[in-house]
């Protein structure tokens, strides 16, 4: 059953990928890339990775597409046809594909429960989480506690990307600014129906984002996903009401404070563990009962992650959208 789904979706995936590479219209390529991301996310879901599917949909298909469109609006839409040098890369690529396919036959096949990967570390997580942390979502437990240091790093990757985009785009545009009158058309203000529906939806999106944030211990979700969803909600607001309105509601300085504050919150939880006599990122010492301490720590750092991701994605979106 799963095989049928997988074959269907994966074949589509390959077709879409080929189409993305072949089309010379970049806008079409970005649209196809959105389909590619959704297909990928559906695949993840079918392969039991609910959290990853959620993230890929919210971050990969949603925010990435929006950022790509923002960049396309500032650059070009049509790609020049390639002139030469098509065969060498194609040959290299084909050979590599064959090598990987050859090597795949020694690999445990899809779903093989006897694979070494399922024997060694993973069962420990599945067995011991109930005892040490006592939350049902093992992915969140691994992400936030067992491998919390990775997640700290990841927050700082987002942080780095955010300051990078702001640094690069803080140079004033070379071309003279277009007359301000064109700014009035920013936003979909004169499309009445989307605006009414959109306004109705924005608060519910926030609510849903908060639900995903705090439900992350029990179901699929957590800081990244929630951050991305709330950012999407604000992006929706910006699309409907125009950039200026969104920036009015949440100014850039607040976004910056969110990016820094979230990252600091995460780090401070770690340092608190250190001060209270544990190791860095040891949440057990936060409370007299180690299990409750772990849960407290997880909630706090997930909040930090959500705040940073939301602030960073919005800062990046605004940096692109403001520029024309």
């Amino acid at each position: 059953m799963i095989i049928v789904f997988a074959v269907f979706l994966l074949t589509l995936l390959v077709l879409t990928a080929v189409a993305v590479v072949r089309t010379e219209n970049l806008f079409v390529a970005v649209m196809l890339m959105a389909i590619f991301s959704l297909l990928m996310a559906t695949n993840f879901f079918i392969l039991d990775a609910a959290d990853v599917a959620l993230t890929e949909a919210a971050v990969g298909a949603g925010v990435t597409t929006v950022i790509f469109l923002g960049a396309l609006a500032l650059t070009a839409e049509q790609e020049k046809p390639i002139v030469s040098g098509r065969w060498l890369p194609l040959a290299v690529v084909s050979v590599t594909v064959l090598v990987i396919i050859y090597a795949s036959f020694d690999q445990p096949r899809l779903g093989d429960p006897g694979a070494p990967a399922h024997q060694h570390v993973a069962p420990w997580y599945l067995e011991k989480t109930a005892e040490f942390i006592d939350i049902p979502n093992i992915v969140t437990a691994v992400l936030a506690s067992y491998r919390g240091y990775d997640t700290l790093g990841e927050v700082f990757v987002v942080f780095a990307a955010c300051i990078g985009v702001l640094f690069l785009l803080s140079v004033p545009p070379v071309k003279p600014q277009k007359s301000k009158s064109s700014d009035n058309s920013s936003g979909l203000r004169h499309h009445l129906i989307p605006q009414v529906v959109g306004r109705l939806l924005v608060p519910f999106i926030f609510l849903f984002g908060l639900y995903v944030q705090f439900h992350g211990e029990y179901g699929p979700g957590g800081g990244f996903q929630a951050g991305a969803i709330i950012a999407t909600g604000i992006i929706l607001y910006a699309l409907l009401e125009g950039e200026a309105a969104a920036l009015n509601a949440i100014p850039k300085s607040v976004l910056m404070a969110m990016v820094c504050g979230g990252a600091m919150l995460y780090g401070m939880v770690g340092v608190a563990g250190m001060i209270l006599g544990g190791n860095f990122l040891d949440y057990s010492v936060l409370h007299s009962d180690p299990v409750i301490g772990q849960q407290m720590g997880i909630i706090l750092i997930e909040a930090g992650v959500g705040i940073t991701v939301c602030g960073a994605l919005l800062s990046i979106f605004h940096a692109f959208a403001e520029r024309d």
Partner: protein
Amino acid sequence: MNITPHLPALQVVVPILSAPIVLLLRPKGMAWAMTTVTSLMAFCIAIAIVSGVQQGQVFNYLMGSWSAPYGIELSIDSFSAIILLVVTGASALVLIGARRSIDAQIESHRQPFFYAAWLLVLSGLAGIVVTGDAFNIFVFMEISSLASYVLIAGGPDRRALPAVFKYLIMGTIGATFYLIGIGLIYIMTGTLNLADMEVRIHEVADQSPVLLAAGFITIGLALKAAVFPLHLWLPNAYTYAPHVVTAFLAACATKVALYVLIRFDFFVFQQNLSGHDLQFSYFMIPLALLAALVASSMALFERNLKCLLAYSSVAQIGYIVLGASLVTVAGLTASIVHIFNHALAKGALFLAVACLAIRLSSTQLTDIAGVARRMPWTMAAFVLAGLSLIGVPGTAGFISKWYLITAVLAKGAWGIALVFIIVISSLLAVVYIWKVIEQAYFREPQQANGAVREAPLELLAVTWVAVLANIYFGFYPAIPVSLSSAAAELLLGQMPQ
């Protein structure tokens, strides 16, 4: 609380948590001051770690107190210690002198971003070095890479942008290949902890996914480390980056990638994959030699001082790889000592270039004609650092060349051919350094350079600190050599010689 057991964590946590604070510091100069202080603290931590390691202390730190294969473990041995010293030292030294150069190249409202990115590079590189977890290396590699793209893109020349784009593409491909390799190993072993991996990979060593993983990891890291045919991103990125950034990154960014490469190929694969040493040698030795020859020749024809030195870096990476690919304790020692010494020499050279660049408008060779009369101290520093790069006795460069040649000669007959190539490449280095010296000392100064003065004191001072370090470690090489040979023995521990 006792701070000593927490040192490995603090090495990363101190700079990484300062980055958001630096970003919020608006007053002029504060961002620089905070970054410098943080960087000095990181350097002190590194020194404490090194002295601990030299006394035989082993640093293992369990993140979140989760035991090893389940949580992330930091582990520091002598190999990590020496690289830590290089990374934090380069950052602290360059930052102390960097302020005016950065002021000249980066608008003040963009500086907080720049300094925050600097701290992220520092903590990313330190994070790669201290960790004992394969995936954690990937995460910190991405932090340091993303932040270093930001630093390089700060270069005022518009050509910095295509250069950094190329770096981004190649760097991301490298990181992705590394990730594929980790995934393939994880399929076969079920673990991400390097020490655990080393034990468990033994049972599955002859299966094709593991071999494929070794290939992907080696190529991915070689891309990051700019090993010869994969070095294409390096020259332009170094040339158009802000001058002090070049000094910092040239001293440590590629070295850390080499560190991971060596650690993986020796610590994880070497003892388990049969014939891996031979494959590694056959694959790497020709590349290393080509790197030394081709890149040195390219440097000969460069018209831009920074680009010349960048090609020279590619050649020097060739030496490091050559030493490692001999797969002997002596070769590996030479390789690690050279990582240390080359960082010193290249750091000093690029700092001297930064001194020149702050007074002259460009780094083209023709523009530095006769500048030695105006900036004698700077050029003297350049000459001494250049001698160290060439490997003249009495400088640090000599020590590593000496170790390298000894190691190569131990390989017997074809070792002599290798020595021949090393000597040729060193001669090429003499020629391209001489080219600079000739321009600076024996050409008539240009009219435009009439008002040029000596470089600002603090920048000149750190340049000279770097130069004196080159000379000091040329006469007293005990610290790097003892650490390196300990590291080499550790890495090749159970190898049958």
